[in-house]
């Protein structure tokens, strides 16, 4: 289990203020990028609960991201704005149910089998959306009018406006982060950490571990649904590629880049990933070769995992150890 040092508040606060102030100074391209990063941070945080806290390495988390996105697009009426008040809860409920169903099956396996099974089920949901007609097949589906929150005819939040959507997403990020932080200190969170450290031990002292793991899996799926919902609203468009296993790989990568086991690592990892991807895809830097951006990305992944297995968050400690090696005690 990790005994975490007290979270230093001021870097978090500073980051939050920077994020909040961003739309006031950035151009629309950068706001879009920042919004994507905020959404991916929520996605990464949801997986951190599963991988970092409970020790369940899922290679199929994109399934819930995509299911939520599709549910958003499918439930939204074609010509008018859906009400946020029912749309978002409905989407999250559907996603959580899917997570519970898939989790119930996957969690019957452990270790490497679990990784393979989550990958397989995510691929299955990909095919469900890709090969069938009900959701537009490989073409995907449009979300024509973005949802609003209105009370008594007065529009409080119109997610069709980029600034509003940005702040709504930021708000979601804060809520998810706080929820996970709270959960981490709670009895439930401690039990999950124990399961990660030694599941057999937990069973030996009296914890039925399956319900805990299923709860974590369902919650993680639901939280990923928030990210999927926001992305669908942002892009106005959903495709089966959101469920592709490359998406599942990307979010796992964000976790390891930032540092497994901390919430700020998940958020940091999302930022680093987006920046890396933008960097490698930049035609300004690489010209025509930029279309092969997956090559440097693949090499970067290998290098980062090999050299920085504890992520960016642990970098200061790693560097300190290189410069002043600590003699091994005892």
């Amino acid at each position, binding site marked *: 289990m990790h005994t975490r040092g007290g979270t230093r508040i001021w870097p978090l606060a500073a980051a939050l203020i920077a994020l909040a102030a961003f739309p006031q100074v950035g151009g629309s391209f950068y706001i879009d990028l920042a919004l994507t990063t905020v959404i991916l941070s929520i996605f990464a945080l949801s997986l951190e609960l599963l991988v970092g806290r409970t020790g369940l390495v899922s290679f199929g988390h994109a399934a819930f991201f995509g299911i939520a996105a599709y549910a958003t697009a499918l439930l939204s009426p074609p010509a008018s704005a859906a009400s946020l008040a029912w749309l978002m809860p409905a989407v999250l409920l559907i996603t959580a149910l899917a997570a519970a169903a898939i989790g119930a099956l996957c969690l019957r396996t452990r270790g490497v089998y679990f990784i393979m099974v989550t990958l397989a089920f995510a691929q299955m949901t990909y095919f469900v959306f890709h090969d069938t007609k009900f959701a537009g097949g490989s073409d995907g589906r449009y979300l024509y009018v973005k949802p609003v929150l209105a009370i008594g005819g007065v529009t409080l939040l119109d997610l069709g406006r980029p600034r509003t959507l940005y702040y709504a997403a930021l708000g979601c990020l804060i809520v998810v982060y706080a929820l996970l932080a709270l959960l981490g200190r709670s*009895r439930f969170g401690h039990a999950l950490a124990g399961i990660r450290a*030694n599941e057999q031990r937990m069973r*030996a002292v009296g914890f*039925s571990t399956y319900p805990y793991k299923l709860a974590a899996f369902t919650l993680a799926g639901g939280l990923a649904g928030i990210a999927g919902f926001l992305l669908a609203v942002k892009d106005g468009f959903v495709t089966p590629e959101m469920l592709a296993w490359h998406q599942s790989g990307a979010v796992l990568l964000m976790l390891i880049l930032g540092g497994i086991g901390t919430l700020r690592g998940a958020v940091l990892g999302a930022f680093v990933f987006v920046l890396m991807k933008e960097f490698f895809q930049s035609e300004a830097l690489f010209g025509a070769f930029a279309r092969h951006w997956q090559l440097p990305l693949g090499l970067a992944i290998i290098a980062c995992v090999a050299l920085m297995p504890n992520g960016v968050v642990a970098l200061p400690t790693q560097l300190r150890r290189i410069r002043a090696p600590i003699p091994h005690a005892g």
Partner: protein
Amino acid sequence: MPADFLLEAAGVSRRFGGLVAVDGASLALVRGEVHALIGTNGAGKSTLVNVLSGEISATGGRVRLLGRDVTHWPQPRRARAGLGRSYQRTTIFAQATVFENCRLAAQAHFQHPLDLWRLATRCPDSTELAEQAIERAALTAQAHRSAGTLSHGQKRQLEIAICLATAPQVLLLDEPLAGMGPEETERMLLLLAALKPGHAILLVEHDMDAVFRIAERITVMVDGRIIASAEPDAIRGNAQVQAAYLGETLDADESASVA
């Protein structure tokens, strides 16, 4: 009297395909007693303990805990009903403090997973039990150290403390003396002796000196079967047992038994 048996195995068998690891084993644990389980390597002791604790299922026979038939109960359920178990290979959470190791174990009896507001470490139920367990295991001074930094002997003590934190009535201890020097062994034996009054203890051990000092009853397993189960003196004089342990000295030090 059956009513006094806290844990009973009646004709327990366990096969793995063609291999019979445990064949018709019966034993009973009584409160206030240390019941030692000895045997050569591969005799089936670990398998029997695993069946008793619930980690693997029996392919035959019955297990009764505190009068209830728990043969089909999974391990967590048995643990909550009062069956504690320690492991031969230390299974402590190395990165948590000694206190947290015990508190988390105690939490198994006070699971309120929906209560997200309360800081886990401030829950009076689990923290109290944890403190008591740490005290009984004589680890109070180390309570806030990281478990990974403990000495080997202290880790084995912690292994027991984790068991105690669940307030069990039956303790299945798998080689708690493994890898210990003479001083640490003394300390552990004192600890076990102090635990006797409240618990029924099954002790799997290879250290014969210790076994003969502390056990009220000894059961001997060979090739999956129990060949003898009696008081230490009777076991010492048992020809079958001596044959099984060819070359091993059973007339151990007659140092005063630890009462």
